[in-house]
């Protein structure tokens, strides 16, 4: 049920798998083929994520422009579509400045520690039927755990910069991430109570089918409160505008990446948008039915992954658009308001949601009603 088997199936259907495998077997090294296939998967995933991230930076600027009745980038390429490429070239040409009193090793390390988890999160995300790198049995736990690395890296970046604004931004980011990871995880656990499994594939499969033939069996209808909590908490974790304390321009100039320039800055920037894409994909997986959609039965078997990928991307981009739309609409709240919202409203509501869900699931499972 993962991309590895899909590639093997495709190769077998093309009649190429057996001969190639025999060549490797002749040298007693069939694991080499396995490694090659996994490597291909990783390259495809990386390319897909990076292209998506570049597209997202363009989309963000376009959505802001549409809200502010402007055009946005228009000159490079059709409708400015090649603007991210130009930005990348520009950033690569910039001087890579390391401040004199900065901790140079940590300063260089921090962008990588931010960037790599942003890619690693995609490993257990099911992009479509079969289109998953690895169906971990603890997929959801893995996602939450990997996301928890980024505040560490942000703190590293803020500390290593040796700048008061960087450190303040990093402190805020950590406070925010910790206080919003709790409602995030609690809202996700309420979903897990329904499926009884942390595997993302199981969660998506549990959402297939419909009630009464019309309403899709998505968890958003079973967990409306959980969905709202998860969405708000994930927007706060991403550090996007209603909650962008780590980089609030009017207070901290640019927050934790104030001292970064050139490609190091680009890595923070890419990680931010990769995170946006990842979080939207997780929202879709948990609450919006993942890649489930009306797949016509007359389609050949090889088209099913593609169609499911299209459904997944449509839903993901809808969530991303919502995040961008919200960003362009609401102003930044104050830091005390943010923490009040997190600890006094979101955490109790998430606990209540978990309690009610657990109660209902127990009743239904034991056949009381």
């Amino acid at each position, binding site marked *: 049920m993962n991309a590895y088997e899909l590639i093997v199936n495709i190769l077998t259907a093309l009649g190429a798998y057996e001969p190639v495998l025999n060549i490797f077997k002749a040298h007693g090294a069939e694991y080499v083929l396995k490694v090659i296939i996994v490597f291909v998967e990783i390259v495809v995933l990386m390319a897909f994520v990076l292209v998506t991230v570049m597209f997202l930076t363009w989309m963000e600027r376009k959505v802001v422009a549409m809200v*502010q*009745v402007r*055009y946005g980038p*228009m000159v490079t390429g059709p409708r400015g579509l090649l603007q991210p490429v130009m930005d990348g070239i520009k950033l690569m040409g910039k001087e890579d400045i390391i401040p004199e009193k900065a901790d140079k090793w940590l300063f260089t390390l921090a962008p990588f520690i931010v960037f790599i988890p942003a890619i690693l999160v995609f490993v257990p995300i099911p992009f479509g039927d079969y289109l998953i790198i690895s169906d971990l049995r603890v997929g959801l736990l893995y996602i939450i755990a990997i996301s928890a690395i980024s505040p560490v890296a942000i703190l590293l970046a803020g500390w290593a910069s040796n700048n008061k604004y960087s450190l303040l931004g990093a402190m805020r980011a950590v406070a925010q991430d910790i206080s919003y990871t709790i409602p995030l995880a609690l809202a996700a656990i309420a979903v897990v109570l329904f499926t009884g499994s942390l595997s993302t594939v199981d969660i998506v499969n549990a959402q297939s089918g419909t009630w009464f033939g019309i309403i899709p069996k998505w968890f958003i209808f079973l967990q409306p409160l959980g969905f709202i909590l998860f969405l708000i908490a994930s927007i706060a974790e991403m550090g996007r505008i209603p909650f962008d304390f780590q980089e609030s321009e009017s207070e901290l100039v640019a927050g934790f990446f104030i001292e970064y320039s050139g490609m190091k800055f680009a890595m923070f920037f890419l990680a931010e948008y990769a995170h946006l894409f990842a979080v939207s994909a997780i929202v879709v997986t948990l609450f919006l039915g993942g890649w489930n959609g009306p797949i016509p039965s007359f389609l050949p078997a090889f088209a099913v992954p593609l169609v499911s990928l299209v459904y997944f991307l449509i839903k993901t981009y809808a969530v991303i658009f919502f995040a961008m*739309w919200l960003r362009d609409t609401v102003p930044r709240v104050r830091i005390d308001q943010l923490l009040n919202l997190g600890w006094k409203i979101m955490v109790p509501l998430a606990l209540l949601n978990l309690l009610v869900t657990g109660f209902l699931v127990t009743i239904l499972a034991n056949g009381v009603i």
Partner: protein
Amino acid sequence: MSGIIKGLIVTMKHVLHIGNRPTVTIQYPYERMKLSPRFRGLHAVDENACIGCGICEVNCPNGTITIVKYGTRWFPQFNIGMCMFCGLCVDVCPMNAIKMTGNYELADYTRESLIYTPERLLFSKEVKQ
């Protein structure tokens, strides 16, 4: 919460151009705004009307204008770097020789090239006999 939803509706109206919310940006190098006919841009001096009297020079508040000899006659010379485009020179000219064109792309690389000699300012109106 209701405030956020109201705000979201307003921004969505902007995205979809509902109501009087057109995209107002002008793609400047490719398209230009329509200028008012009385727009105060770069000056132009009528070669046949100008008598080189120097009233414009006296009236210019910034000392932009100097009267210089060009060919056999005297004409005003404008240092656009000092000009504030008030239009007093146009008003005081006894022969109505100075007018202002709509040319507003006056940025240049050197201060010297901002000095517009009569050579670059003069135009000759077709005189009806």
